[in-house]
């Protein structure tokens, strides 16, 4: 069967951008589609220009990932864009000794939204890696397409969550990453790497108890998980208690212990944990 972009989970976004691929681009996107069907995927919401996941979100650095070794890295960030300086992000990759083997770059007419797909060779592995960037898109738009496309994303890499730690207040339909465990069935999430450890989550729950109902309602907009509906039937106090129990019972391990570096972020290295989602 001849490959078309309709087979990609991002096909509706590409249509919206009125994208018409060249033969070379179609061939690269076909490769990406195969890779996504066969290899593990990691998603980094509100990534900005950060590419630390390409170096650290693997089972060689984080042994607790077991067999999981992502090859496809999906990033999204509403506020990040490459348009002020053409190929700025290519230079960013090159400066980290990452070789760009192929790329597809799609922009909308206003240049507020862009999708980049890169085939890469990093200095740490002989295997090709794929990086798919959604700039100018809300994380939730990407989540919807991943879920509708039945794409499994066993690893979430989330540092400085856009909604609870960053500038995510712009989207009334936002889903902070601390609530991603409620998407685990839809997305097949097995692990989350984040600086939002249980201590931090306690703090967020205390500070944002009035927002949890909204966040869960937003989860329900993208998720087919029926247990969320039951949660929303609870009173505010019961809901806070239930969320505290559910989110804090997730097994987590600090990553950078005894002076050993397993995952780096210049802001949060000491706080980073891996959460195991059952």
């Amino acid at each position: 069967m001849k490959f078309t972009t309709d087979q990609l989970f991002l096909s509706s976004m590409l249509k919206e951008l009125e994208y018409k691929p060249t033969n070379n681009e179609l061939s690269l996107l076909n490769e990406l589609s195969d890779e996504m069907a066969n290899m593990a995927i990691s998603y980094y919401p509100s990534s900005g220009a950060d590419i630390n996941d390409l170096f650290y979100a693997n089972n060689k650095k984080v042994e607790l990932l077991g067999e999981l070794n992502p090859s496809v890295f999906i990033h999204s960030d509403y506020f990040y864009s490459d348009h002020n300086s053409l190929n700025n992000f290519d230079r960013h990759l090159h400066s980290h000794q990452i070789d760009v083997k192929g790329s597809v770059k799609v922009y909308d007419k206003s240049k507020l939204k862009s999708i980049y797909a890169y085939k890469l060779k990093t200095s740490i592995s002989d295997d090709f890696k794929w990086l798919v960037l959604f700039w100018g898109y809300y994380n939730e738009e990407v989540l919807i397409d991943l879920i509708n496309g039945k794409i499994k994303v066993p690893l979430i890499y989330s540092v400085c969550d856009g909604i609870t730690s960053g500038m995510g207040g712009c989207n009334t339909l936002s889903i902070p990453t601390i609530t991603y465990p409620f998407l685990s069935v839809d997305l097949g999430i097995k692990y989350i790497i984040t600086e939002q450890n249980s201590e931090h989550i306690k703090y967020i729950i205390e500070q944002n108890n009035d927002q949890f109902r909204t966040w869960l309602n937003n989860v329900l907009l993208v998720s087919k998980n029926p247990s969320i509906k039951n949660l929303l039937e609870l009173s505010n106090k019961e809901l806070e208690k239930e969320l505290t129990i559910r989110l804090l019972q997730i097994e987590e391990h600090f990553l950078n212990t005894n002076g050993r570096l397993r995952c780096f972020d210049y802001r949060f290295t000491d706080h980073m944990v891996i959460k195991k989602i059952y």
Partner: protein
Amino acid sequence: MKLTNCFISKYYDLPSYERYSFNSMQYNFLKKEWYLSKNDIESYINKGSSGIDFLWQAIIFNLFIKIVHYYHKNNYKYCVDFITWRFYESCQDIPIQYIPIFKGKFKNFVDEYLLTVLNKNKKNKFISDHSLINMNSYCAFLFSIFELMNKDCCEFNIEEVIAEIKDYEEFKDEFSDNPKSMSCIFKNTLLNYK
């Protein structure tokens, strides 16, 4: 002699400038290079043994960075991140992608700047005597950096890394061939270091 926060802070404070260079994949990238003026070197040497030791440590740390950058690039980011995390206290303010390296070769620094920049024979004898006495410690310092990386951040076969120094294309001019020169003595001590 080992890596400390104090050493790394002082190393990052060495006067430096940025310039574009090409990495191994021929991509243009920003490189940070440090240098020391005659006066700077003199001020370190006037501090006595500790000043001389710092200058040796600085050029050896530079050698470590160059080895990893050119020949073990799979570990480069891990080493830079680890050093930033463990030893650079201001790392929360500035993400450091490149650790500065000396603008010249190892031999330029130890054979030329360090010994001849002053033209003061008495001082030169003190510097060379102190350096020769401590040559083993300087070599041990380089080993200790690799050992620390091996323990806490990435994998190196240290003996192999050191043994390969003499074969590195990029390093063929790094050390002098003159057996009496300090750079040659350092290289030979390093290659025979147990």
